[in-house]
């Protein structure tokens, strides 16, 4: 008897608990809503708190980018607050909520943060959650900035209050195309993948920019992310006439190493251009095979110069060196906010948005950062790196004129 009624009792208890827990979850959300009242902003120029809501993927598939960004940003916030805030009066309060790298959860936590009266919302380094969360911020008139989502469509999809701390894929492609033209390459082959927006659109933008420069795309291949062999694609490249003198691909691990091994193994010596996805120790570990590979990245992570100071401060706070350039770009998002608030002289969401949309020449670590005329994407220096003797060697930093960059495609 007891054995039989057991499940019923247990299920009732659990059902009851679940309902209570769900209600608890909802009611705390409701109390968040109540606090919107506090957001009555002081007049321009008066001291106030800049509430920054972060709806990032602290766990899950986007944590690899979102976590180091937050680390960099929190270092900046700590430094600013230690100096009495931006301009000595605008202190920073960071509220972090984990989106678990999930699009729906991103929207939910963004709604919670907006209900808390934030001045600005920061979202994941990916277009999907940025568009979902950004649309809510747009409706509230609050600026939303992606940690580093590089698809240049956030404003088109979610509205003019949505930005990204990253350069657009179109701009990155333009830098590569200009480099190819400068090197005197005539015929290009591009290799993309329909599996992600990044791998799909970068070759398209590159081709457009390269042909605008007078080059010719003689072939465009397609791969599946994670595919085991590139021999068919390499054979296809070998058979091209005229043979390409440059190959551009946004492939990254594990596809890039597999591809370049097959390519060099087949004796093809054409120059290879890559994108920021291959800025990793794996690429350097390819030794001779990767020699001469040139790629774009936000900056070179090196403990020297201005970045050396960042290394020291980061190490003092976290007890380790930054492992990725994303810690630097996270810090730079803080520096951008500093420039914006300095200009707006306000914690008011609308004032911040206006200043953000018109920002020009804010000083970052890797270079200057602007938003005016960037269609929501940061106009920032792009470093071009060549691998020499298994080390990163900086060719230079570039910031193409937005007017010459291929138009973002929906």
């Amino acid at each position, binding site marked *: 008897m007891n054995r039989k009624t057991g499940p019923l009792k247990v299920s009732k208890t659990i059902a009851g608990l679940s309902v209570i827990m769900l209600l608890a979850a909802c009611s705390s*959300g409701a109390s968040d809503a109540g606090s919107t009242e506090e957001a009555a902003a002081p007049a321009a120029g008066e001291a106030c708190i800049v509430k920054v809501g972060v709806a990032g993927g602290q766990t899950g598939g986007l944590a690899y980018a979102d976590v180091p960004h937050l680390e960099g940003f929190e270092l900046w916030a700590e430094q600013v607050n230690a100096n009495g805030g931006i301009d000595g009066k605008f202190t920073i309060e960071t509220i972090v909520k984990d989106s678990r790298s999930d699009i729906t959860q991103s*929207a939910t936590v963004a709604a919670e943060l907006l209900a808390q009266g934030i001045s600005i919302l920061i979202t994941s380094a990916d277009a999907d959650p940025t568009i*979902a969360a950004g649309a809510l911020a747009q409706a509230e008139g609050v600026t939303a900035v992606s940690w580093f989502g590089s698809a240049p469509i956030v404003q088109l999809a979610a509205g003019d209050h949505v930005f990204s701390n990253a350069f657009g894929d179109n701009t990155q492609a333009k830098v590569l195309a200009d480099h190819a033209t400068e090197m005197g390459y005539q015929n290009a082959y591009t290799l993309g993948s329909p599996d992600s927006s990044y791998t799909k659109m970068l070759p398209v933008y590159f081709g457009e920019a390269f042909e605008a420069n007078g080059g010719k795309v003689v072939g465009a291949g397609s791969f599946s992310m994670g595919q085991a062999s590139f021999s068919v694609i390499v054979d296809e490249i070998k058979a091209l006439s005229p043979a390409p003198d440059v190959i551009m691909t946004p492939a990254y691990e594990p596809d890039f190493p597999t591809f370049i091994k097959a390519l060099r193994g087949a004796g093809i010596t054409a120059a290879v251009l890559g994108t920021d996805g291959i800025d990793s120790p794996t690429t350097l570990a390819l030794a001779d095979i990767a020699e001469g590979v040139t790629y774009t990245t936000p900056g070179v992570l090196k403990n020297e110069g201005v970045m050396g100071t960042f290394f020291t401060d980061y190490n003092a706070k976290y007890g380790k060196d930054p492992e990725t350039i994303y810690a630097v770009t996270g810090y730079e998002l803080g520096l951008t906010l500093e420039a914006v608030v300095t200009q707006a002289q306000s914690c008011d969401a609308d004032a911040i948005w206006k200043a953000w949309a018109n920002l020009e020449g804010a000083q970052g670590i890797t270079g200057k950062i602007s938003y005016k005329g960037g269609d929501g994407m940061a106009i920032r220096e792009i470093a071009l790196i060549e691998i020499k003797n298994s080390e990163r060697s900086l060719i230079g930093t570039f910031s193409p004129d937005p007017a010459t960059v291929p138009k973002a495609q929906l």
Partner: protein
Amino acid sequence: MRGSDAGMQLIPASFVATRNSRKYTSTIFWAIGIALIGLVGNGLSQAPQLLLANSLTLLIGVLALQIFSGNSGILSFGHVGFVGVSAYTTGILSMTPEIKNASLSSLPVSLQEISLPFPVAMICGVVAATLVGVLSGLVIARLRDSASIASVGILIIIHGTLVGAEDFTRGSQTFFGVERFTSVPVAASVAIIALIVARWFRDSRVGLHVRASRDDVISASSSGVRVQQSQFKAWVLSAAVAGGMGACYAGLLGAFSPKDFYFTLTLTMLTMLIVGGSGSVAGAVIGVALVMAVIENLRKIGDSIGLFGLTNAGLAVIILLTLYLRPKGIMGFHEPEEIAAFGGEAPTLTEQDLPDGIVSASEEVLSVTGLTKKFSGLVALDDAKIFVQRGKISGLIGPNGSGKSTMVNCITGVTKADSVVINLGPLQIHKEHTWQRARAGLGRTFQNIRLFRNLTVLDNVVVACISAGESVKSADKSALALLNQVGVLHHAYRFAGELSFGDQRRVEIARALALRPSVLLLDEPAAGMNPAESAALLAQFREIMKRANAGMLLIDHDVTLIRSACDSLTVLDHGKVIAQGNPEQVLSLPEVHAAYLGWGDEPSNDD
């Protein structure tokens, strides 16, 4: 085993006594709960609204999984694909031409101009998911053990198609611009529909057949269940319900991409179903509520103390605890109202409910001749024959390995004979499947009892009554009468797996009788019974024969039983019939002694 207890008092026994009242109780209870959430949720601020709308949307999908995976026992990884198909369809059909012009410029002109009201687009989404369900179901229905793996393939194919169909979906890029139509009341309304569908399907004719096949495919076919067809219907229905989730998902955030309809969402939904208990609708609801509550509360705690992995750790603990403490999930295979019904009064029957026995003139109801079966050269049956007459018991004996079970399997269609002529009354049996032979009047029991262990005793018999063409309601009545006939009526609401060995045998016989067979094939029905039980069983056989107006083929080692029960006897040895005729005469033949015991003595009981 029965009596009052705290668990059942909430639902009065009289109210849970019938299948319909249980179904109504359950549906109304959950529907009111969800409707309340829908009403209350509408007044909350945006974040909790999103949480509730998302939870309800997930509930629709988990209910879809319950309909197929829960009832069939085949874990599906493919349903999120249907969610995706429906979400894109709903999005494309509901978006305004202006937005489509900007974001889906390559869309065919005919689709560019369409802008349906959102609810209509949602219905189209469900239709699209159903169509994909029909196509994929044609494959899934043919598989059993490998169906789960095939469902992974279906997910990958649908994902690849969504990525590849760039003109329609923007490929891997974010699809955006869909109206945010899915408010809490909208999601609640669709969830209520999904819940009603899932709960009603569970106790429908097809639902009962699918659940029977979950527990035992061979025994289900032998009870007349068209396993493939039932599986197909469950798959298509669940695809349609998954389409309901997709339609809601489209309007939840208004933006998504193919990667949102892939393994992460699949695993989230499967976790909910497995934690709650896949075998019941209540399990699906409790799984979603519990997992969402844990995720949300732990996330909030984690956010407030800066410990971000807390949610995943909590989920891992819940899954491990569930698998350890309740491998079948919190609710197991049963709805709460079913467990409560078991605690209620045992059913009773009035005399009028008992069918009258009819004894008609003896005629041949089964004749099997020329039965030959070889397994890779080994001759299992060589030109064997057997006959059964109405109202008579034909015995079949033979030493181990003589071909008795092969003969039964060939007659019932479980094994394909190399050559045979079978006449079942006026019907000639050729290539008919097991379920067709069962429906044509071949009822059987198994040497090792094969009941549907997770179904109630009543439902075990109802499954076969339905195969015989009865509606669920009349099947319930007939099944109770049959259970009464074999003496296990008082166990009707218990789960078959919990009965004693002898009672399980009786249920198996009742299930075979439910097919209204002209022939009953009983494979060692007295195995494991003591002499007193065997004698009682024999008396029951006579009574059963009279009532069922059937013939019986009795296979047993118990020579005393065979001798006293059978009207004729066939002896098999090395696949050949070595003697056939009057039991007394057959048993006294020296060659039977030699074959059966290996020497010339009369066979006895102690072998």
